[in-house]
């Protein structure tokens, strides 16, 4: 019973709901009870794991291959004495993917500080520029190299999608970076960036959850963090309890979803073949 307070609250909520249910559950839309229970159950799982993480409980997160590739890429650009180009996507800080992109930038900035490689971060939103500068300055501080950090390492180009892609292309062609990292939310311009990066022979690593752009990054880049891998990587690097707890909680729910799929197939077979049990399909149809 690790988190007594959590279980007491959950238990009492459950009892209150039972009493309310047996009192005829006024004002409650009964045929959506399956959704109500799953919302409460999943939220409780997430909250439980976040609280455990906040208590400092050690969670094992499997190593993310993409992150190792990032270290190799920065190492390679140090050998070749060329800069590292980091593109945090084209959207603003209200997008969860941009927030994850800035967190990964902090990790990359620590490496460029340690290896003394120059870092170039063109951005397309003013709030992203502020956040990116903050996190880079902090990383250079932690690595004990505040002297190496200068403000225009992170610089604003333009808000417009294609003008930004053209601007970043110009930087790639002029400075010929050895490593190009694309971490954040991308739309159609992902293709323009990855293709030019390919033509200058740079190592390219991408990370995004934008489903339509993942195929282009997978074929054009050397390594791609796909969807949730990107979020797990940023949680892993940020060491923020609510992010690590969130990843852990979602894993538990995913395991639950897989079990339910297997059980549902089984029950459906039993019910339709020999009439045993209950109609699972009706249960899962919530209107």
């Amino acid at each position, binding site marked *: 019973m690790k988190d007594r307070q959590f279980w007491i609250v959950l238990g009492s909520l459950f009892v209150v709901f039972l009493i309310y249910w047996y009192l005829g559950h006024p004002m409650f839309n009964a045929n959506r009870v399956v959704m109500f229970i799953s919302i409460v159950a999943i939220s409780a799982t997430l909250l439980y794991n976040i609280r455990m993480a906040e208590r400092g409980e050690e969670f094992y997160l499997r190593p993310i291959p993409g992150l190792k590739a990032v270290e190799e890429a920065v190492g390679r650009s140090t050998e070749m004495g060329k800069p590292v180009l980091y593109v945090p996507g084209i959207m603003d800080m209200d997008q969860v993917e941009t927030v994850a992109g800035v967190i990964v930038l902090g990790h990359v900035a620590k490496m460029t500080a340690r290896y003394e490689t120059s870092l170039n971060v063109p951005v397309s939103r003013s709030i992203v520029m502020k956040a990116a500068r903050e996190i880079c300055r902090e990383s250079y501080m932690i690595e004990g190299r505040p002297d190496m950090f200068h403000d225009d390492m992170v610089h604003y180009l333009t808000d417009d999608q294609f003008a930004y892609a053209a601007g970043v292309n110009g930087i790639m062609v002029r400075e010929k970076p050895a490593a190009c990292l694309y971490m954040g939310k991308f739309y159609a311009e992902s293709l323009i960036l990855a293709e030019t990066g390919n*033509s200058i022979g740079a190592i390219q690593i991408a990370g995004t959850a934008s*489903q*339509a752009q993942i195929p282009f990054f997978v074929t054009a880049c050397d390594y791609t963090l796909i969807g949730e891998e990107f979020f797990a990587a940023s949680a892993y690097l940020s060491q923020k309890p609510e992010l690590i707890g969130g990843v852990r909680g979602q894993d538990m729910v995913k395991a639950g979803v897989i079990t339910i799929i297997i059980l549902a197939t089984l029950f459906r077979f039993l019910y339709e073949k020999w009439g045993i049990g209950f109609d699972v399909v009706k249960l899962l149809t*919530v*209107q």
Partner: protein
Amino acid sequence: MNGLTELILKIGKVDRRWIFIVLAIVVFIPILVPIGMPIRATVTTKVVYDTIENLPPNSNVLVSIEYSPSTKPENHPMAISILRHLFKNDHKVFVTCLWPDGQFMAQDALKQVAKEEFGKIYGEDYVLLGFRPGGEAVIKGIVSNIRKLYTVDVNQTKIDEIPMMEGIYKFSDFAFLFTVSAGFPGTVEWVQYASDPTGVPMSSGVTSIQVNEVMPYVQAGQMKGLLAGMPGAAEYEALIGQKGSATSGMDAQSIAHLVIVLFIILGNAAFFIERQRSRKY
């Protein structure tokens, strides 16, 4: 053999604007000189056709337009073919838009099909309710009480002055929903906030790029078939027997695809040759 490898490698180094010119020519010529290849309907397109064909006579059908001129070549032929099919079977068509410029697209389609081709009467056979901003919240408003959201139609006439709006108060008063969608808000939001919570059957015509996001709904039965991109629109034009812009675009689409596949194969051939060479030295 050596000459060929040199040629492939040389193509790899060529300025990419030559590739742009090749694509422009390959797309331009088949539009001018149509070849007319046979179009074969796929299962998902047939399911849409059968679902609309089996709708009970003059039922209320909600058609929602969520695309803009930037994807008009894919979406507009779908809207026109579906409207032709609905008006041929004398259904009552109600049109809403979740995208601002969807209102223009709906206006063009209705003018061409309802007014000019079928001579339908506005306000009795079809009505254009127009655009309301708010994305998924607009869908939730239509599901619970459409009259609070749409008090006037696109020409600013009051709803209760429109005869066909009689008895239409919320989403479940419609027998079927067809949405023509190009992104957010679109088909996904209509499944999540309208069709799933109420059980009203729905189908959709989407741009090619959105097909992958929507296919799981079709396979799980949350949607009745799907028109997938311009090929889907061309197949539907063949099913209703009225050729349109999608069919005429298919020749150019076919040849352009072959050229892109050729580029991928050539590009990878050059990649293998270079890797072979770099391993030797």
